């Protein structure tokens, strides 16, 4: 019994060492010394959990039974690693960018965050992994039994060893697997521990191999000769199984939950992958190098009927090498424990994220929950899941009796998890893959696997009735579980692999082709298929100073520097740091996020803080939320902008209206004062003379006549003024009716000249005309036009100050206009007055004040009504006016 105690002591010491390593690594991670934790070599070694106890013990057994076939299980993953540029590089990047936590999470995220798919993959993984965990427990138990006296076979399943191993592993996994709830699901302690275990198992196997080759067989050449001489001596392999298992193991390498955990989830940067690409195939090669020599030597030296699965232990024991046997035991123990730990972590993440949490959240729906609350629930559910997974493994082991060949269980599990492959590969390489397709493929593959391989593996009559296995369900031989459609391949495994993966892929492709993807699914698909790297790996919160500065800069930009500084100062004080930047603790980040959310919206704030602290890519959901917020803000600001534009337009209109009113008021005042002045002058003379006539006695007849005619003249002047005003107001209001008739320009001018010069016959101005140019026919208001001409001519007569006044009237045609110029030889209008002569009551001087100063204003109104224009021509010697009329009203006389 002492050997058993020794084994127990060694195992406990070994586990304590692992505890120490894991604890040390976690401590190092927390204090920021992560460089060596993320070293590529650690990553590469952690991948060795692919080599479980199944490999450690079972490979030799498999070699002894089936020859070289065991190699395929390592060749497949080697090819996957060598082809890292094809698949792994992309997978790892997607994992980092999308914060993927498990293979179920990847499938679920890719297909539009479908929880149904997540649950499906989780169940598949649990069912596929449970026997595998049972296998590890079994191998540890068997290996312990090797050292003790042989235990009767029936009692093997009841051994307490398996239970204690399971319990111990559960404790270890709970402690290091759920220590922290990192968004990236990285476990530095666990990864470090399994890297150490990788070294232990490789050392153990290589040491044994060296002992066998050089110690027992006498060198390489002798070993090769021994191999050739043994029953494995000739190259014989089942082609189908060689090809099929190689593919199967390659697929399982990508899909196994524990492999996905170390390959993708624990991956931190591309450098790790680049090293693993060549180093891991080397590791696998070293692990499998001595398998055949050990198997051959074991077959040679050990008695007939010895279990080849335990050659690794029994061979050195039979040679009296207890120390080597203990090392081999440790190697096997390492293989088993590392696999169980990582598998339990991976499965608990899936179970908790895809089954427990959704259920819990649904139950809690409607009640307000605090974030710390959820965190505790997640941790608790993880811990319970780990215990549950190990319990399941133990139960499977205890119930199955633990006597199946190791390799067989392993391959059954491989085939089960390989069902994820079509959805996984389609998800990262084919944008057209849809949720429906993935669901159909997984369902088809999973059910065929259950029906053709998993359930029959329990033996006829256990789950499936023996009659089904023999003749198919209800006698349908085409549906016999081990020979679907009458094809059996002569091999259960190949049969199951072929049909499950074929129908899985067909259902996946068909389902994808005949279904439509939701928008979220399409976005996720695009992101996954065209995954680009997010530069270097995610930055850790450990680079605290740099991050705090970044956060400060960002916050200043959003809140303004005063407020940002006040906030950071307050938080630093709360953390007990005086005069420094606060450390980016979760509490501080929460406060900061809340503050920022007030300015930029919750989703944007989360994305911004996440970008700086997590370094992870922003997911589609984040982006959609950000886009929503941005759209709302843009709409709001667009509305504001439109409103302010309208306001300023209205203000401008009001200002213009106000200006106009002011101008009109000034004009009106000026007009009133003008008009009262104009009316007042004749009125006062009328009043004065009529008073003289009334009051003065003895006026002579001549005087009476003179006064009466003055009164009459002034009254006439008033009448003319009022006529003019009336005329002007009619013209200005546009109420005038034009009386369009035909007439010759010459006649109109004749009439105007004689009318203008009529009252002072003979005296005054000489009018010079060129009658040739005046032969133009006009369709116009002849009366109004001659009124304009009269006004211009009498103005010339009144104001021309030349000694011998002359008025030249010339008619020309230019650019479709008929131009009638009136030019006299006087001194003309002073330049400063030229602007105002067309205004009402504008008189150049009072020297010959004959009119009210309305003539030119009326003339301009008339000409404008007639469609023409009247203007003053400066620098023509004297006063020069030009009346232009549109030609459509003028026609050359026939």
């Amino acid at each position, binding site marked *: 019994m002492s050997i058993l105690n020794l084994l127990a002591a060694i195992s406990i010491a070994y586990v304590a060492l692992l505890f120490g390593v894991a604890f040390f690594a976690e401590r190092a991670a927390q204090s920021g010394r992560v460089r060596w934790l993320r070293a590529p070599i650690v990553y590469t070694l952690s991948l060795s959990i692919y080599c479980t106890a199944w490999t450690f013990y079972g490979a030799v057994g498999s070699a002894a039974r089936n020859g070289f076939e065991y190699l395929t299980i390592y060749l497949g993953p*080697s090819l996957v690693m060598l082809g890292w*540029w094809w698949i792994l590089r992309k997978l790892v*990047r997607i994992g980092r960018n999308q914060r993927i936590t498990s293979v179920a999470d990847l499938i679920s995220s890719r297909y539009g965050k479908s929880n149904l798919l997540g649950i499906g993959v989780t169940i598949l993984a649990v069912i596929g992994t449970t026997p595998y965990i049972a296998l590890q427990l079994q191998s540890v138990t068997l290996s312990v039994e090797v050292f003790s006296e042989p235990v009767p076979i029936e009692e093997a399943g009841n051994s307490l060893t398996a239970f204690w191993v399971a319990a111990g592993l559960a404790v270890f996994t709970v402690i290091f697997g759920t220590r922290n709830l990192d968004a990236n699901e990285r476990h530095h302690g666990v990864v470090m521990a399994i890297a150490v275990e990788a070294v232990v198992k490789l050392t153990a196997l290589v040491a044994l191999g060296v002992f066998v080759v050089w110690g027992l067989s006498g060198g390489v050449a002798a070993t090769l000769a021994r191999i050739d001489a043994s029953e494995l001596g000739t190259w014989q392999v089942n082609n189908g199984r060689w090809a099929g298992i190689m593919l199967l193991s390659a697929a399982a390498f990508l899909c196994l939950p524990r492999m996905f955990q170390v390959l993708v989830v624990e991956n931190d940067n591309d450098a790790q992958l680049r090293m693993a690409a060549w180093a891991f195939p080397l590791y696998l090669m070293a692990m499998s190098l001595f398998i055949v020599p050990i198997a051959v030597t074991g077959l040679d030296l050990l008695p007939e009927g010895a279990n080849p699965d335990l050659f690794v232990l029994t061979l050195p024991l039979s040679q009296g090498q207890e120390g080597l046997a203990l090392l081999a035991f440790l190697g096997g123990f390492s293989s088993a424990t590392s696999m169980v730990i990582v598998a339990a972590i991976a499965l608990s993440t899936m179970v908790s994220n895809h089954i427990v949490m959704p259920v819990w959240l649904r139950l809690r729906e409607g009640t307000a929950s605090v974030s710390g609350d959820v965190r505790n629930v997640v941790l608790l559910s993880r811990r319970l899941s780990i215990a549950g997974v190990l319990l399941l493994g133990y139960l499977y082991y205890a119930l199955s009796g633990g006597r199946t060949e190791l390799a067989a269980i392993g391959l059954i599990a491989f085939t089960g998890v390989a069902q994820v492959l079509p959805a996984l590969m389609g998800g990262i390489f084919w944008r057209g893959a849809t949720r429906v397709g993935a669901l159909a493929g997984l369902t088809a593959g999973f059910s065929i696997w259950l029906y053709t391989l998993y359930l029959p593996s329990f033996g006829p009559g256990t789950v499936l009735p023996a009659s089904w296995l023999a003749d198919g369900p209800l006698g349908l031989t085409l549906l016999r579980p081990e020979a679907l459609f009458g094809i059996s391949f002569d091999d259960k495994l190949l049969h199951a692999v072929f049909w499950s993966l074929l129908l899985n892929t067909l259902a996946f492709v068909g389902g994808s082709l005949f279904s439509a993807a939701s928008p979220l699914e399409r976005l996720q698909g695009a992101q996954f298929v065209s995954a680009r790297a997010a530069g270097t790996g995610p930055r850790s919160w450990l680079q605290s100073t740099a991050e705090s500065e970044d956060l400060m800069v960002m916050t200043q930009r959003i809140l303004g520097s005063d407020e940002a500084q006040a906030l950071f100062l307050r938080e630093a004080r709360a953390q007990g740091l005086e005069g420094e930047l606060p450390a980016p603790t979760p509490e501080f980040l929460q406060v900061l996020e809340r503050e920022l959310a007030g300015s930029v919206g919750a989703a944007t704030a989360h994305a911004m803080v996440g970008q700086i602290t997590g370094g992870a890519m922003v997911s589609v959901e984040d982006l959609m939320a950000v886009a929503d917020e941005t759209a709302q803000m843009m709409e709001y600001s667009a509305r504001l902008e439109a409103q302010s534009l309208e306001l300023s337009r209205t203000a401008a209109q009001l200002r213009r209206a106000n200006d106009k009113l002011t101008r009109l008021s000034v004009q009106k005042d000026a007009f009133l004062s003008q008009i009262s002045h104009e009316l007042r002058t004749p009125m006062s003379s009328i009043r004065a003379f009529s008073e003289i006539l009334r009051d003065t006695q003895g006026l002579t007849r001549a005087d009476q006549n003179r006064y009466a005619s003055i009164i009459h003249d002034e009254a006439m002047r008033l009448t003319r003024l009022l006529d003019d005003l009336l005329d002007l107001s009619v013209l200005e209001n546009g109420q005038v009716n034009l009386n369009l008739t035909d007439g010759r320009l010459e006649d109109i001018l004749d009439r105007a000249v004689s009318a203008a010069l009529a009252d002072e016959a003979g005296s005054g101005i000489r009018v010079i005309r060129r009658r040739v140019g005046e032969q133009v026919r006009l369709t116009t208001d002849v009366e109004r036009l001659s009124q304009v001409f009269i006004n211009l001519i009498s103005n010339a007569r009144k104001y021309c100050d030349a000694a011998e006044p002359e008025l030249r009237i010339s008619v020309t045609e230019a650019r479709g206009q008929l131009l009638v110029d009136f030019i006299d030889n006087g001194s003309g209008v002073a330049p400063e007055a030229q602007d105002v002569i067309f205004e009402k009551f504008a008189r150049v001087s009072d020297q010959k004040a004959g009119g009210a100063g309305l003539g030119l204003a009326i003339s301009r109104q008339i000409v404008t009504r007639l469609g023409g224009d009247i203007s003053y021509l400066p620098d023509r010697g004297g006063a020069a006016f030009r009346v232009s009329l549109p030609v459509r009203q003028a026609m050359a006389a026939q």
Partner: protein
Amino acid sequence: MTRPPGKPPVRHAPFQVERQSFRRRRLIDAACALPLLGWVLWWLPLLWRGADAPVPASLVLVYIFGIWLGLALAAARLVRLLGRARNVSPLPEGEDP
């Protein structure tokens, strides 16, 4: 100092960059081809049905492990060359570090 006529200034950079990116592309192609090569080589023994005498196991063992070692070393070399090419040259379009 005047340049001798007819000799334009030496312009290495664009040419070199182009050559580097071309070289990198070839390395990537090689990295992609490596697993296919391994696949073919490891399936080759399936055709070995000794016509007159059965193929000895030791020969196959040496063959398979020899290829294994060779592939791993080739992959290591490619990774190293790719790392070097990435450091000097800009990336070909559509590729990331």
